């Protein structure tokens, strides 16, 4: 078996390197874009509707809240593989010719945004109420309180979960091979199909994913230690 694994690595290593780049880019850029979207959505999610608010403010807040809740429910309630197929082909049918990579990145970003919105909401709600009161007591407006006091703490509180989402994305980006994204899994699948060496080819893919996720976890741990945040073990979100 080892000889067959070595043979696959020898023959397919340039494709594996390319696949590795695609996997890393999808996971990293997808997590970053997802985080940016989640920053906005989580702010909409935790907005408080006060009885003193003007009617149009109340309506806007309610629309924002409903939109985010619906978004999170849909994206967390459906598999990413299904989302990828729907996005890829519906855009194609609408005449937008986009690459499989672009469609994959779009899917992974939107999917990540849904999970991170909830992660950040938890982070925001875990900030002590006294922080808001103290900020308001020195005259900071509610938006400045959120921006300068609550949000930085929520982001720090959520760091471990955000890092976990990156690791999840490294692994779960494999499902994007369904729309012909050429990532590590897709290369291994091609190699397996060529020689009917499914176990050997997938062991190579598993090794690459393991090295990637392990090294990412170590880098995240270093950053966490530097930021002084606790590491939290979490199960896959997808």
């Amino acid at each position: 078996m080892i000889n067959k694994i070595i043979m696959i690595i020898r023959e397919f290593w340039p494709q594996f390197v390319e696949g590795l780049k695609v996997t890393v880019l999808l996971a990293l850029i997808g997590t970053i874009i997802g985080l940016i979207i989640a920053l906005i959505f989580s702010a909409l999610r935790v907005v408080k509707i006060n009885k003193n608010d003007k009617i149009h403010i109340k309506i806007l807040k309610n629309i924002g809240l409903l939109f985010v809740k619906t978004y999170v429910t849909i994206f967390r309630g459906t598999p990413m593989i299904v989302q990828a197929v729907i996005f890829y082909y519906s855009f194609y049918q609408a005449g937008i010719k986009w690459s499989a990579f672009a469609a994959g990145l779009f899917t992974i970003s939107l999917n990540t945004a849904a999970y991170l919105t909830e992660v950040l909401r938890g982070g925001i709600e875990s900030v002590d109420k006294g922080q808001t009161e103290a900020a308001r007591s020195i005259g900071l407006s509610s938006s400045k309180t959120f921006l300068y006091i609550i949000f930085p703490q929520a982001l720090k509180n959520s760091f471990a979960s955000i890092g976990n989402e990156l690791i999840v994305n490294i692994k779960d980006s494999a499902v994007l091979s369904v729309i012909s994204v050429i990532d590590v899994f897709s290369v291994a699948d091609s190699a397996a199909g060529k020689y009917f060496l499914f176990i050997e080819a997938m062991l190579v893919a598993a090794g690459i994913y393991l090295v990637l996720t392990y090294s990412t976890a170590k880098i995240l741990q270093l950053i966490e230690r530097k930021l002084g945040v606790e590491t939290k073990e979490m199960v896959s979100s997808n």
Partner: protein
Amino acid sequence: MIKINGLKKSFNNNQVLKGIDLIFNEKEVVSIIGESGSGKSTLLRCINLLENYDEGKIMFLGKDIKDYDINNLRSNVGMVFQQFNLFNNLNVIGNCTIGLIKVQKLSKKEAEIKAIEKLNLVGMGEFLYHNVNSLSGGQKQRVAIARALCLEPKVILFDEPTSALDPKNVNEVLNVIRNLAKSGITMIIVTHEMKFAREISDRIIYVDKGIIEIDDTPEAVFSNTENESIKSFLQYS
């Protein structure tokens, strides 16, 4: 400076303040005492609108506090909390400068000069760049006082500033408040430190079940033999 008329406040069906009438004069140090749950902290929090009251009126410098821009009001009415509530994402000097930069629109340099002056005043000038979580309770409270002082408020509200501290740290904080009292700043202090209240206050207000029972000089309050409620309260304090 502050005039309160007929102040009422309920939480659900529990009426905490049952019609408070009070006046706080400029440069006066007033302590508010009373049992836990008597409405002292709620009264204080209504003054800078951290709690919205149901009925009554609070006038600050001759104007209804609800007619003020709320952020402007709060920068004039400083508050020090029982649990310090220092901003965990900012260091000591950051806690003091954020209000100056974001509310009073001072430059970072101007804000730092002012913050250092106030931190020196409370004996925390050597801890400028420390993480607030590395400080003792007394040190945290002193930074919280400096943070309130930075905005140069016309009045500072202290909500049980020593209740979360051990005896050693209590004295540290009380000394700072003592020095502030001498400087002539208007202060309203909710406290359980009877000895301190007696020593520092121009006036003591005893609140019981949401009503002002006694509003008098420290001597008169502590020698009161007629009011059973305060007699009983002081006996256990």
